[in-house]
């Protein structure tokens, strides 16, 4: 545990699997972007751990903060496709972020399955327009970039800024993936005892 305090903040996310993005001067179209760069690897996903260290976590927070400002968004979330909040930036007010992330993931899971039924590989983006607030979700491999915005912003602006941020997020997650096996072997949870577990239920 001490060792981790020295190392700082660490996330362990089992199952995130994002292919490394090439350095492109021109972004590919949405279709090729998701089909070829982020093709899900379902079997590996269920078993392989993924860890994000302090440095990567702070980088993600920086990207989200910048995206939030650039989009004039209310709040920006990075959510795992299984429904866990990885990070967020902005005004959450009294929003239930746990439920929000779970429902965002359920939403994307459902629309992705609908995409397959009509012969699409995936819908790379999902948009919900409300009377005051709207939600734009961009699928980045095993994670989702979710932007909540109101009339101070526009869908076009959000899409434009989110696309650039998606590449940065993918790069950071790839960087974290390359360091994940070391962090996994040092996990504090290998030291959990039966007594620790029993104490939860006492």
């Amino acid at each position, binding site marked *: *545990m001490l060792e*981790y305090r020295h190392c*700082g*903040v*660490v*996330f*362990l*996310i*089992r*199952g995130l699997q994002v292919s490394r993005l090439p350095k492109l001067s021109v972004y590919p179209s949405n279709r090729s972007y998701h089909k070829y760069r982020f093709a899900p690897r*379902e*079997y*590996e*996903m*269920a*078993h392989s*751990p993924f860890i994000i260290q302090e440095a990567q*976590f702070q980088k993600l927070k920086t990207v989200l903060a910048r995206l939030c400002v650039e989009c004039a968004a209310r709040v920006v979330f990075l959510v*795992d*496709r*299984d*429904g*866990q909040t990885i990070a967020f930036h902005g005004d959450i007010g009294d929003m*239930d972020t*746990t*439920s929000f992330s*779970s*429902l965002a993931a*359920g939403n994307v*899971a*459902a629309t992705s*399955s609908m995409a397959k039924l009509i012969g699409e590989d995936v819908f790379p983006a999902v948009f919900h327009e409300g009377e005051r607030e709207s939600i734009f979700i961009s699928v980045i491999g095993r994670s989702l970039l979710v932007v909540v915005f109101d009339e101070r912003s526009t869908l076009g602006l959000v899409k434009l800024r989110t696309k650039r941020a998606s590449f940065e997020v993918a790069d950071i997650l790839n960087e974290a993936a390359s360091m994940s096996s070391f962090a*996994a072997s040092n*996990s*504090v*949870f*290998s*030291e*959990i005892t039966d007594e*620790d*577990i*029993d*104490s*939860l*239920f006492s």
Partner: protein
Amino acid sequence: MTFINYASREINCKIVYYGPGLCGKTTNLQYIYDSTAPQAKGKLISLATETDRTLFFDFMPLELGTVRGFKTRFHLYTVPGQVYYDASRKLILKGVDGVVFVADSQEERMDANIESLYNLEENLDTQGYELSKLPYVLQLNKRDLPNVVPLDDLTYELQKKGEPVFEAVATAGTGVFDTLKAVAKQVLTELRKS
């Protein structure tokens, strides 16, 4: 997918309640929700039809306490039990850490139990999991009804790998928390191994 956040010192795990239609999966969650202190739980989200049948999933986050200084939060999901919602069931199993199979003990629901259990194995396989390697608990629900299959027969038919078996009456809360504890323990034990 177990998610460990060293920044906020939290462990998040996903547990899915599976079983045939009307076996009591939502009732399990509802009882847990009603019996838990407000500070230990989030909202109970139900994506249900107008007749209160689960359409996509029910969801509630539940905080059990701390282990090694980490808050342990379990995300509890149910699947829709009706046969034709199979696509939804597959989606909800993604990233699962532990499964509770809720069986309906009534004689006339025996076939439905077996079909649902087979469906669980098949859908887990689709997601890259094997039931034999996953934290798993069997709950025999509705034990208060008059037309139930004897315990030994039901266990013989439905037990897959020597998993813990609990008799339950979810409407009254009997066996609900025992089931949850058993699967949660297995999930945390797996976390230690990994």
